[in-house]
């Protein structure tokens, strides 16, 4: 007789998002399976100055952290605003999705999402300029992420040159 109620067991914060890694080696089904079992989170919207220590302190609040890999600019090899956090257990990662996602780290609202698992090479930004793709095209000014987006920066330089 004892059972659960689907209407009451909503746990939407741990749902898999729409994002799928385009570089993932395998099909959609395999990727989804890994995401549903994963102990690893992608963390985005970090400041370039956010340190591994800060990430460790915050994400340890949901459980023991196994490993942190800070995302790097492919060319400069400096932090470019994302990281991976791997937990020892799925349950701890779920708590992070429920209670750390959408809160602040280093004064910025950060976003966490399930990751299929770290593989060598995935610590690098995939934008043309070396950082993350989102920093290629954005129009706003974000001092913690290198100022203007790369494309906008180029524009400014060209404009500057033209105005001569």
């Amino acid at each position: 007789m004892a059972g659960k109620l689907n209407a009451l067991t909503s746990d939407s914060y741990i749902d898999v998002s729409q994002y799928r890694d385009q570089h993932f080696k395998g099909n959609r089904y395999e990727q989804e399976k890994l995401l549903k079992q994963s102990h690893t989170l992608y963390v985005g919207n970090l400041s370039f100055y956010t340190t591994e220590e800060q990430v460790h302190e915050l994400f340890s609040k949901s459980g023991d952290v196994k490993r942190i890999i800070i995302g790097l600019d492919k060319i400069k090899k400096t932090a470019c605003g994302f990281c991976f956090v791997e937990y020892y257990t799925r349950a701890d990662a779920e708590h992070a999705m429920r209670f750390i996602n959408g809160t602040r780290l280093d004064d910025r609202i950060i976003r966490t999402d399930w990751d299929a698992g770290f593989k060598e090479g995935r610590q690098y930004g995939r934008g043309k300029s070396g950082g993350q793709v989102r920093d290629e095209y954005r129009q706003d000014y974000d001092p913690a992420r290198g100022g203007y987006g790369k494309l906008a920066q180029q524009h400014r330089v060209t404009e500057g040159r033209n105005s001569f």
Partner: protein
Amino acid sequence: MSRRRHSDDGDGGQAHKRRRTSEPIEIEDRLESLICRVGEKSTSSLESNLEGLAGVLEADLPNYKNKILRILCAVARLLPEKLTVYTTLVGLLNARNYNFGGEFVEAMIRQLKETLKNNLYNEAVYLVRFLSDLVNCHVIAAPSMVAMFENFVSVTQEEDVPQVRSDWFVYVVLSCLPWVGKELYEKKDVEMDRLLSQIEGYLKYVRVKTHVPMLQVWTAEKPHPQEEYLDCLWAQIQKLKKDRWQERHILRPYIAFDSVLCEALQHNLPPFTPPGHMPDAQYPMPQVVFRMFDYTDAPEGPVMPGSHSVERFVIEENLHCIIKTHWRERKTCAAQLLSYPGKNKIPLNYHIVEVIFGELFQLPSPPHIDVMYTTLLIELCKLQPGSLPQVLAQATEMMYMRLDTMNTTCIDRLVNWFSHHLSNFQFRWSWDDWADCLTVDLEKPKPKFVKEVLEKSMRLSYHQRIVDIVPPTFSALIPAEPVFIYKYLDESASSLPGYPVSVTVGNAIKNRASNEEILTILKEVPNPNQEDDDDEGESFNPLKIDVFLQTLLHLAAKSFSHSFSALGKFHEILKSLTDSDEGKLHILKVVYEVWRNHPQMIAVLVDKMIRTQIVDCAAVANWLFSQDMAHEFTRLFIWEILHSTIRKMNKHVQKIQKELEEAKDKLEKQQHKRRDSGDDEDMDKNSEDEEGQLEEQIERLQEKVESAQSEQKNLFLVIFQRFIMLLTEHLVRCETGSVDISTPWYKNCIERLQQIFLMHHVTIQQYMGTLENLLFTAELDHHILAVYQQFCALQL
């Protein structure tokens, strides 16, 4: 519901097929949704929604009776905050269909037996409360409910059972009375008086309250006594009785349907004998009621119900239930808390803040993970930006003012909450308001609290940030800059005996020398413990450890990852250096020396070294209790390391136990297969081989489990022994000097001992016999023994 329909962009034909085969599930979902969400997002009244739903369900009974029964039973168990909504619904259904009412009651009794058998005592309370409210809905006859209560209370007459067992049965009865006391007294006042009198006798003359000091958040009686939960509930029921059971807070939709429900035939509860006590039963632990507000604290608006009013009990119960239901989804949880029915008549924000902190500070541990409460409070601030932050600030201020008598474990949680909360609000706080903490000894609770908050805040930001956010007067409380201290930094250290080799080995590491080369270099380090030169250098050489580790960690000081990488790369060398217990102790000493400005780094390095078996758990415990660390003994990071170490030990044992269980299951399955497979000789032989291997594996795992448990027991023995030594020393010293024992150090130490028991009570229970025989004997100072006795009282 709709999730399933849109779950895949399959082609049209497939979707159609899927829809047909999944129909029953969809109907169940629809029924669940209708029932769970009755009254939500509706412009009509709750009563008219209930009437409508009763009509729909009545029509569905012929085809979906069992589903409806299942859903209603689940709702009774899982949505206690909506108790009266669903008892009304059941009342309406019973009025329309007497048989269904009877079947529902039977199903509830079955479910009650199930939950009790499975140690789900909290859910059982909700079931009994539901049944009792069904008396108000004319579904259950009052006399049969009284009879069930009488059977419950008779458990207090049982002998040789844990007190927590009889406590639970008394609690259930008392906690139903706000809902049904009036009705039961009207029908059976003589029996009810007898019942209450029996309960009073139990509470006053039988029940022992040794456990209370261990569970109180504050030791002070003022301004709000931290009352034992049954004592408080008893006082509340007494007051309710004096008020002739007039209770005005509970929402009772069934009142509107009185004329309909009056006509309904009632059912009698079958006689219910409480299941007997089983040795593996896990009754709920006793609690202390957390109070931090009273009517003087909410400046304007509705008055807060008094601490012994039944309204207070009902409000707190309902808010706890809402959190229990929605804790996974913070937005929903916050919204549900803020839309509490009847919120306009109470200072809801104060109740919410009090209930949340009550859970966060609950001893032994909060019902949910600590970080949930931080995020929930942030969510609440977002939804009520004009009022909730002020209440929260007021609460923080109050808790600061009462730090002197706050339990150390609760102060830890307050530190973690406050620093994490501040980090979400740019660390804005009126620190000047707390300038009084600068005028007292820095070991006192207030300055200590501020210091720990600033240290944690720095971990979430950076040193300069902390310097910027506090007034200059607070400089003594600002944490040190987390920089490495390298003994062999430059030529000024050239006179130190280890200096020359530190330079050589540093260069060797930078030039990627092999382990053998490095070990050869290290042979040159003189051993301060050795007089002979012809020693092979195999024995413990503290200087060798010092030179190698200081140099290595200095090179890797840049980040956690660099340091972990270094530990990994030179794992072999480190293991050989720490072969002995002295070696393990010394490596920890060196880690502390170089990183003493960066406790966070110390913690992660110790964690890594345990996990890679460079040091073991007992070594860490011995190091933390060593004389070298005495000056840090009251700092939070010490205890975080110790508890993390104990947790790792516990997880290790659990892991091997699990492997053993799995191997045993595999063997059992294998044996069954062989038995069922018949006379196939080849199969038999292969099977036998497999079984043989499994049996060997099981034997090995058995040994592993025993060895791990032995290590675990030893860890606790070490920890408790050290506590006893330290505390006894202090007590004897104070006694001979005729000095008051209650120094800040003593309060911290004795509460840290309590904390060990509380945080690891499940594991420690296994070793009670050994602890009692070896350590917590009658010869022990009564101050220390009291802690042990209070702990035992938690499950007696």
